[in-house]
Every structure is written in structure tokens, then in C-alpha cells.
């Protein structure tokens, strides 16, 4: 139903991706499997990697890694630990579409598909941006490669093990506490477009507002918060000069990059899976790092 609606909308908008991709997305969301996945990211500060156990069923995905287990899907995020359950639920969101600057094609150029699987390449102009090797039966992504603007590998993930899932549902939602609901909200200074990404939705967030950006392939959120925030500790992350500006703090994890900076009036946290050249382009369209004037700093020093 959702995909039929999405397909209709994309047709009307003239941004229809290759039909096979829509089918693949649909199949991948419905696939039921268990597996173990390795993710490696070549960030500016070195390589980071992790191995996680993954279980997907009923549109929900359970990820178990060194920090615990999380169940994610359909706008819900459930974290269970010995002390209890944290249950986050997002307000309804806009429809998905793929940026029309991407070109989707079946198969890897000059390479035959591996047995039992299919490959998809996504190019931005002539540059290779992503490669997926999907399980032939379920479209589960077995291997993914994400490339930066210079054509080198930025993120690589592969299923070390994968198999069919059996048994009951992962979660009994009847036992869940009331969710911590995030309603729509308005950010004051965040634009509606950055780079080629568009702001899809905005939500309330602890201490500020979240603006969710996407291009259909990658996605990131900007959290606009009080200038006095330490960005959840990100102000201790390595300092970075990105594009024409210094004053950023950047942290790479295998699955995401996080950036923190302060402008004269506010602080921002960016979290997302976008590649480095996209990150630079996006930051150039957002309020740059800046300092307050001397009197403001003196007042803040004295009174917080």
C-alpha cells in the first residue's frame, strides 16, 4: 500500500527510480533473516569497524552490538536493557523518493552477478556512488559499498553470515510502556535544503529541534539546540576543518558521522550516513561555526 502510494507520487513528480529498485526496497523491507554483519568506514581520522548481529522480521530490525540491543523500524526505536525499556516513537513522516541526480542500473559494470544474488550500481553523474549485492530471493543486502566523491571506498559492509529467521516475533508490543512521542516542530535557523538534500520532516527533540534531511539514498538529521550545549560530549571529538570553515568537531563511527559546532547564537549536531563530499556540501549551506562578541562572551562566562 505504502509502496503503491510512493510509486504513484514518484511518477507524478517525475522522479521515478528504476522499477527494480522500488521492488528491491519493498522486498528488502519484508525480508526475514538473521545474520552477522561487518561494517568498515574509512573516516578522515582513521578506519572504524564493528561486527553486529542482525535479526529482521515484520518490518522491524533488531541490532545487537557492543552497546546492547535495539529494535528499530516503522518510526519506532526500542532499547531494552536490564534497567528497563526506552521506547521512542516519531510522528508520521513524509513519503520517500530518490533524488533525480542518481542513476540506478542493474549489474556491476563488466562483472557477472555472483551466484544466487543480484547487483545494483548507483551513480551520481558519471561517478560511482554505491554498489549493492542483494540476495537473489529476498533482496537482503549482502554487501554494500559507498564511495566518496574521489571514487575511493568510504563505507563497506558485508554479511559474514546470513540465514532464514524462524520463531515468534522479536517483541511483544503489548508489554511496551507508553512511547516517548516526538511531534512535528519548527527549527528557527535550519534551511529547507542543504547540498542536494531536502528537509523532509522536523520534530521536537530534547533541548531543541530535529530536522531530517534525505536524498533517498543517504540521510542525516540536524539537531538545533541551545548554544551552551556540549553536543552530548561531541565537543570533545577531534576538531575538524570542513570546507572553508574550522570550528567543527567530527566523530566517525562505522555506520554514521556526527558533527558538532556552535554559531554565534546556537549549537548544532549533525548525525547521518552521508559520504564526506556530501557532508562538505551540506555544511556549506548551513549556519557556519562562529563566536559571539566579547560582551556576550563575558556575560555568558559570568552568568552561564
Amino acid at each position, binding site marked *: 500500500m505504502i509502496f503503491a502510494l510512493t510509486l504513484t507520487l514518484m511518477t507524478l513528480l517525475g522522479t521515478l527510480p528504476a522499477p527494480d529498485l522500488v521492488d528491491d526496497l519493498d522486498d528488502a523491507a519484508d525480508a526475514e533473516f538473521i545474520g552477522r554483519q561487518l561494517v568498515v568506514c574509512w573516516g578522515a581520522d582513521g578506519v572504524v569497524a564493528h561486527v553486529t548481529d542482525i535479526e529482521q522480521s515484520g518490518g522491524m530490525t533488531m541490532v545487537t552490538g557492543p552497546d546492547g540491543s535495539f529494535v528499530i523500524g516503522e518510526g519506532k526505536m526500542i532499547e531494552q536493557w536490564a534497567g528497563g525499556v526506552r521506547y521512542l516513537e516519531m510522528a508520521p513522516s513524509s513519503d520517500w523518493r530518490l533524488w533525480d541526480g542518481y542513476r540506478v542500473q542493474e549489474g556491476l559494470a563488466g562483472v557477472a552477478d555472483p551466484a544466487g544474488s543480484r547487483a545494483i550500481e548507483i551513480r551520481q553523474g558519471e561517478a560511482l556512488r554505491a554498489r549493492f549485492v542483494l540476495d537473489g530471493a529476498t533482496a537482503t543486502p549482502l554487501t554494500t559499498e559507498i564511495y566518496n566523491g574521489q571514487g575511493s571506498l568510504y563505507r563497506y559492509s558485508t554479511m559474514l553470515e546470513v540465514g532464514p529467521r524462524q520463531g515468534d516475533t522479536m517483541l511483544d508490543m503489548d508489554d511496551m510502556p507508553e512511547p516517548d512521542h516526538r511531534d512535528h516542530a519548527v527549527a528557527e535557523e535550519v534551511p529547507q535544503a542543504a547540498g542536494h538534500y531536502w528537509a523532509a520532516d522536523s520534530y521536537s527533540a530534547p533541548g531543541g529541534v530535529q530536522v531530517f534531511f534525505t536524498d533517498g539514498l543517504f540521510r542525516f538529521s540536524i539537531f538545533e539546540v541551545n548554544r551552551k550545549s556540549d553536543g552530548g560530549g561531541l565537543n570533545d571529538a577531534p576538531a575538524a576543518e570542513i570546507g572553508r570553515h574550522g570550528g567543527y568537531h567530527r566523530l566517525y563511527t*562505522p555506520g554514521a558521522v556526527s558533527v558538532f559546532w556552535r554559531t554565534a547564537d546556537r549549537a548544532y549536531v549533525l548525525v547521518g550516513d552521508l559520504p564526506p563530499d556530501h557532508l562538505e556540501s551540506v555544511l556549506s549551506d548551513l549556519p557556519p561555526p562562529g563566536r559571539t562578541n566579547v560582551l556576550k562572551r563575558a556575560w555568558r562566562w559570568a552568568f552561564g
Partner: protein
Amino acid sequence: MHLGDLISAYLDSQVDASERTLVEAHLAGCEECRSELAAATVGRKRVRELPLLEPPPGALRPPADVVPLRSARRRSLVAAAAMATLVVGVGFSVSAERAVPLRLDAVVDQHVARASVDPGLNVLQVQAVVNR
């Protein structure tokens, strides 16, 4: 040939530019070394997450030979401190909005929760939540 000790050196940023290029090229094509790298990364992270131990009571007792302030000077300091407290208190009362503490894990959770609404390839979308 595998990377061996170079993996540890690479994680510690103890390799030069040419070695780094060599390691990264090898990792791109060697599943065994990628697994070893992943295991080493997880191991180091766990070590970093070990709790800090509190020192036993009395271990940080101040030295016994601290010279006390003379009482007159102490009274002056107390008066100055009281005045400063008053000024700061007034300042706090008129200061504008306060910062709500932000937690990075909560930020990542909220981003991934929204990302999970988009169709398909969910496995790619949920990776951000690990190693927050």
C-alpha cells in the same frame, strides 16, 4: 599475506601515509583482516569503557602543612565572596534560556527512528545506532 601487527599500529595511528594506504588497500580485499580489525576495535572500545575506580577514602587527603589564612584576610575574602555570590545570583535570575543537557545516544536514536520509516535496505539505516 595478512596485515598482522600492522592492524594494531593502524588503529593507534602509528603508521605513515604509505603504510596507511597499503593497509587500507589490503583491508578492502581481505575479509580475514577486516574481521581481525573489527575484533580489535571492539576490544579496545570495551577497554575504554571500563569504569573509573574511586580512590579509597583518605587517599586524597590534603597535605598537613597548609598554612591557614589569617583571620582578618579570611573575613575580607568571605565578604568578597558573599558579594560575588549576590551578583552572580542576580545574573542567573535574569539570564535567558538554559541549556537542556543533550545526550548523543538519544540524538542518534531519534535520527535512526525517523530513518527507519523510509523503505527498504533497513540494514543500512540502522547501523548508526551501534557504537553511539
